[in-house]
């Protein structure tokens, strides 16, 4: 009886939170899943049935393997458990196979691999200080951070409904961040290297890691004014970091290098043949650019400045397609987006180099890298906003200014994920969960920072409240109007543009706060 009392006793709130969200994930098992479900089933089949040399060449299904080798090995490991559930799912020819057992296996694999995410959240909670702690449990920063991360709406929707494996990947990222906070740099670097070979989208934040490790780990000391002390450079540390990265990459890409398949692997990983935006424009800068282009071309046609024969007819009425050419504004190439991204990242990287502020500065740079890549990248998916939202949660419980930026970013970012779930039974779920997360995050952060100035000014509050009418219009009013047949893309366009405005604003505000922060000598001790 006493043992039972210990496990269930009132003190263990973290376990209750983790268990609660796991039960919610179990309830989400019968919901809609997207084509990503078939993608992962196909990868289970490929890695199980075919030899390694065929993995990146197999193309029976349109969903070819386009993640780095570690993820392929992960699917291979999963497939050995899968065979006890349903042998048929491991057949490469069984396209779109989704028996009940397959569904159960896949869903449970996501739920169980989330254990790494839970552990990472636990580690992150140790890294934030509880100076602002009230006596109430629900007002402690650790509690708020745990809820913001464990019950994150975006992660729940994308992983457990839409179907992906982001949980444990973000777990790896958060764990590496936590290790850097705990000054265990080698582990942090190792974890990030491993993460890169699981999903290469994390290249977006690699500059932050590289700069921070070089500046704050390889240079072991600073001059009193905070700038670099060149003679404190530790070659050993640089070498060990390089060795870690090299060994991990060798483990991952080595086999494929040996089989001379490296170009094929790279072409699968970086498919630049896709368009600037995919069918639903992620709410980034290019969405605004596309909209401006469309508006200008419509205006141009009306004002007879443009010749309607010279414009491709499709781009007028089809709305959101994979964008390849613009009509009025100059077309955008992958190189152009790369240059824009680099220009956007550069100030934050310079800030990290010249004004290092320890792990917190690194975290801000990481978020800015993620956001800048989201805003200016090529063929960005709206799910990539999670790369910025999750690390930002760590900052949000520290300062009121960061909390305000976090709330704008996260509310808009989460709202932009709505078009992922377009089926009717999932509509109440996404609205309820979004309300749940938004109300909790705003009210808890407001309570945490109630002694400082209010979190939102009237413009921001208006903008956030505007999401409600936007949702009502897009989901409930628009389908019953006559525009639905003529311009079916309008809800997606509106969502994209409205959220792009909010995300750009948050990015800008974060940049301003990073650039105008006082240098390290004057900041408080971490």
């Amino acid at each position, binding site marked *: *009886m006493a043992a039972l*009392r210990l496990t*269930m*006793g009132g003190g263990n*709130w973290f376990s209750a939170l983790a*268990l609660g969200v796991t039960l919610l994930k179990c309830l989400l098992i019968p919901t809609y899943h997207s084509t990503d479900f078939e993608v992962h089933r196909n990868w289970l089949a490929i890695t199980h049935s075919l030899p390694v040399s065929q993995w990146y060449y197999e193309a029976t299904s349109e969903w070819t393997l386009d993640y780095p080798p570690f993820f392929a090995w992960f699917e291979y490991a999963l497939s050995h458990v899968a065979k006890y559930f349903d042998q048929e799912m491991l057949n490469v020819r069984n396209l779109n196979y989704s028996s009940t057992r397959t569904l159960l296996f896949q869903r449970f694999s996501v739920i169980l691999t989330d254990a790494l995410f839970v552990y990472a959240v636990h580690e992150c909670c140790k890294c934030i200080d509880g100076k602002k702690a009230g006596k109430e449990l629900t007002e402690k920063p650790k509690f708020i951070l745990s809820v913001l991360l464990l019950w994150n709406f975006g992660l729940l929707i994308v992983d457990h409904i839409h179907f992906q494996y982001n949980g444990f990947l973000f777990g790896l990222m958060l764990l590496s961040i936590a290790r850097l906070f705990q000054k265990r740099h080698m582990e942090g670097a190792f974890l990030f290297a491993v993460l890169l070979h699981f999903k290469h989208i994390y290249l977006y934040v690699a500059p932050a890691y590289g700069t921070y490790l070089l500046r704050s780990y390889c240079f072991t000391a600073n001059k009193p004014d905070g700038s670099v002390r060149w003679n404190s450079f530790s070659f050993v540390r640089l070498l060990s970091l390089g060795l870690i990265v090299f060994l991990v990459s060798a483990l991952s890409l080595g086999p494929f290098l040996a089989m001379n398949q490296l170009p094929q692997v790279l072409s699968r990983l970086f498919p630049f043949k896709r368009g600037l935006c995919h069918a639903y424009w992620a709410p980034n800068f290019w969405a605004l650019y596309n909209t401006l282009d469309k508006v200008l071309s419509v205006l141009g046609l009306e004002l007879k400045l443009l010749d309607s024969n010279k414009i491709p007819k499709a781009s007028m009425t089809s709305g959101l397609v994979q964008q390849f050419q613009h009509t009025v504004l100059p077309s955008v190439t992958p190189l152009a987006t790369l240059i824009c991204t680099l220009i956007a990242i550069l100030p934050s990287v310079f800030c990290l180099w010249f004004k290092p502020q320890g792990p917190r500065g690194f975290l801000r740079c990481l978020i800015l890298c993620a956001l800048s890549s989201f805003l200016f990248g090529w063929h960005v998916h709206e799910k990539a906003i999670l790369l910025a939202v999750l690390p930002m949660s760590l900052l949000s419980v520290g300062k009121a200014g960061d909390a305000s930026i976090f709330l704008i970013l996260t509310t808009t970012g989460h709202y932009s994920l709505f078009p992922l779930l377009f089926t*009717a039974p999932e509509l109440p779920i996404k609205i*309820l969960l979004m309300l749940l997360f938004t109300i909790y995050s705003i009210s808890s952060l407001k309570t945490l920072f109630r002694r400082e100035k209010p979190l939102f000014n009237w413009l921001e509050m208006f903008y956030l409240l505007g999401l409600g009418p936007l949702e009502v219009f897009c989901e409930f009013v628009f389908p019953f109007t006559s525009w639905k047949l003529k311009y079916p893309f309008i809800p997606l366009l509106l969502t994209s543009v409205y959220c792009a405005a909010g995300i750009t604003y948050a990015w800008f505000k974060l940049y301003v706060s990073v650039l105008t922060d006082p240098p390290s000598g004057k900041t408080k001790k971490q």
Partner: protein
Amino acid sequence: MEKWHLMTIVVLIGLTVRWTVSLNSYSGAGKPPMFGDYEAQRHWQEITFNLPVKQWYFNSSDNNLQYWGLDYPPLTAYHSLLCAYVAEFINPDWIALHTSHGYESQAHKLFMRTTVLIADLLIYIPAVVLYSCCLKEISTKKKIANVLCILLYPGLILIDYGHFQYNSVSLGFALWGVLGVSCDWDLLGSLAFCLAINYKQMELYHSLPFFCFLLGKCFKKGLKGKGFVLLIKLACTVVASFILCWLPFCTETEQTLQVLRRLFPVDRGLFEDKVANIWCSFSIFLKIKDIWPHHFQIIISFCFTFLSLLPACIKLTLQPSSKGFRFTLVSCALSFFLFSFQVHEKSILLVSFMLPLLLKDGLLMPLVVTTMAFFIACATSFSIFEKTSEEELQLKSFSLSVRKYLPYFTFLSRIIQYLFLVSVITMVLLTLMTVTLDPPQKLPDLFSVLVCFVSCLHFLFFLVYFNIIIMWDSKGGRNQKKIN
């Protein structure tokens, strides 16, 4: 109340759990010719929309009472009619007379589940929130925890959103009734309770405590003055609400009688199927259904029911108190369930017992998840494992009395703890066995009967436990008064 946002969050969690459970299968899905309760509710929409009121409860060529005839009071029929109007607006095929039998589609399922959610949202959930807010002498945090636990109660969620029924409407009205009567808004409370009875006749289980409590209040105010006025007002409210609900059926006696015949099928036997009822459990040892004549069964069940709830009701009439009222509600409901006639397993809405039913519907996953969630919510909110002293179990006065005769009776709380452990282990084992093993050939109903039997023992224990609390509560109070 401060912390409105926490209360909103708790309600949102409750709603999310409800809707995700509703994504699962419903009773009788894809099982012609009879299907299940889902088809029954759809059929009632069809009947009430297409036929005139006079024909709703009668057997006719258009209305075959053998195929899910209406057997709930008129308010359910009106609710079905309301839903039918909406259904007709969206897709008339759903309620077309005769041709829509066994209609199943994703859109229709969505529609039906939405009607349950809206009914829940309008009636049950506000009642729960208000009830919790009106509880006195508890901190806001405890109130919110209360609401969370009540909203996560698996029995109601699984039956309403899984199996498919509208229990939340009648329970919601009953809860409004309890709220009204406890806060001294007697007329509104009794009106709400009459609506509950007119929605599902199962609520009659709770009617005796209401009656006794209100009668006790009238007595307390003095029958010669204010009490009498209150009595008259209550009587008028009850009569008026009944007339209002039964208006179309009051015109002819034959109508009223037929409705009553549908509501209370005394032609059927003492019990049907496997129910955690005394009679069903008793019939394991002695086949009473076959031995005793029909009218004898009715009389015996009536006597036992009445005898078992008499002490608590008398106590409530003589000493009306909110706390006694609530406990009497539970014990009377238990008495009715255990001893009365033709009880259905859903009447108890207690999860452990509904296991076979839910397994048939394919609702094992939601059952396990919601039960665990409920358990965790209760354990973390109320630290139930730590509050096991006699005082907290409300058994202090009882054990004091017993100790006058048996001075060594000090281990009551430990007995209860061990009983709890044994009970949980038994239930988990039975669940595992029912799910994984196949019953032996000679006894095909072995597991259902075992579940019934164990549940019956539980309910008997709780009947005794609650009656003890009710009866010994006053003695402690009386002693205190004497001392003071």
